[in-house]
């Protein structure tokens, strides 16, 4: 039996093939996703308004940048299979990542191990299947009742993220209190200042800013603890 906590196992054939299959599935899914506008234009017999698309360049560039930052930032957290699946199925920060963290927390998995990679992949795969099926089933009442069903359920939609991150926040705070509390304080000040100036930076921007600020403070704390250790040893 191989050691499930051995960190060198990432270089084995299993992980190489995880990447290979991930690239194949990503290429297929990207192609099919890109075909949707083409098929729509052919079915409707219309052409898009290219001038409008070109005039949206700043929006497109900013979202391309956010997507890239998210893919890089989530890479250490999602595992190989989880990363490929998450960036095809979406809803990463509000569904796939919390789901993977929940599974890791329940099973008390040590991060950075092959066990953690496997459990994360299982969690993201199951989550993707469940979500895809629920959305497909949801089409039936939407087709029958239309907007009426939306009116009944819509009041809860803005509160799903606080409902997830309140509970998950307790779990993360208990695990990473030192690494979380300083960026939380800094970002709270940033948010209050920007909101009081009438600026709303948006949730996805704050998520990116949060990770950058947290990485900087985490790295400073890491350097300080290394210096303290060196002083003690010296």
């Amino acid at each position, binding site marked *: *039996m191989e050691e499930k906590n051995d*960190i060198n196992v990432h*270089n084995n054939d299993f992980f190489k093939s995880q990447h290979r*299959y991930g690239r194949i*599935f990503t290429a297929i*899914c*990207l192609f099919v*996703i890109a075909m949707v506008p083409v*098929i*729509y234009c052919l079915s*409707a017999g219309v052409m898009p*308004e290219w001038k409008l698309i070109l005039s949206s360049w700043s*929006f497109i560039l900013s*979202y*391309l940048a956010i*997507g890239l930052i998210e*893919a890089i*930032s989530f890479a250490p957290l999602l595992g190989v299979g989880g*990363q490929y699946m998450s960036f*095809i199925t*979406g*809803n990463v*920060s509000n*569904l796939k990542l*919390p789901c993977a963290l929940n*599974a890791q927390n*329940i*099973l008390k998995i040590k991060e*950075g191990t092959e*066990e953690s990679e*496997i459990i994360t992949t*299982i*969690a993201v*795969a*199951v989550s993707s299947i*469940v979500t895809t099926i*629920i959305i497909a089933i949801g089409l039936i009442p939407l*087709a029958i009742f239309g*907007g009426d069903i*939306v009116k009944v359920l819509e*009041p809860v939609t*803005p*509160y*799903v993220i*606080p*409902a997830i991150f*309140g509970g998950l926040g307790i779990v993360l705070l208990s695990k*990473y209190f030192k690494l979380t509390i300083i960026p939380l304080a800094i970002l709270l000040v940033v*948010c*209050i200042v*920007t*909101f009081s100036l009438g600026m709303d930076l*948006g949730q*996805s921007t704050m*998520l990116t800013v*949060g990770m950058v600020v947290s*990485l900087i*403070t985490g790295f400073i*704390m*890491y350097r300080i603890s290394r210096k303290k250790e060196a002083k003690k040893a010296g």
Partner: protein
Amino acid sequence: MPKDYASIFIIGAVIALAIIAMSLFYLLRAVKRAKEIGISKDKIKTAITSSALFSIVPSIPIVIGVGIMMSFLGLAIPWIRLTVIGALQYEIIAMDQVEITKMAVITEPMVATALIIMTISIVSGPLFNLFFYEKFKNKLVDLQNNNKRLLDTITGSLLGGILAGLASYIIAAAIFAPKATPNPDAVTVTANGYITLITLAISMAVMLFCGLLIKLFKWKWLENYALPITIIVSIAAAYGLSFVPAFA
């Protein structure tokens, strides 16, 4: 509501099937590998059931998102868009680049234009995975082998950063929301700041209470259900509060 074409439903079904095939493929491979490296059947079963259970409640707002978008794009396009990369907030901003939500009559060229903008804007993540992710992941593995503590700091910082970014935004937006003038053109329901803060507090309290029960009574079974219970209780509370006249 714009016309739905059968061809779009067919390609939507192809995408949904491709996603399920990809997920099943990775699930079966991961389960096989888990057995090879000695992860117990109980652990695998717990990972599957807890993830399935966890995913049900947060998936419902995605269906509601399809319902919100269908009056502008028909039923098939929102279904596809919310089944693949992206999320409701992003899709609404993306489709509104052609001001589709403000139009009295939505034409097919407008839908096509919105669809292209929505599709192009989200491809950077999958493209990164396609061309650079393996190399990047190998660098992370090298870092883990050479300096595990630094990688642990990076991982912890990223998780802490997600929490810090979201929590600070939720709290600050909630504090300022009661003062903000509701936008009559807004496509989605605007959050009430007080309800947001109460939901956040209830979610934290329920999770703490579950943790307490697990410790005091050694209810290990509750570990699997703590977060789903927390989410359901806090969303139910938010739903109830949304009908309280004081929060209207």
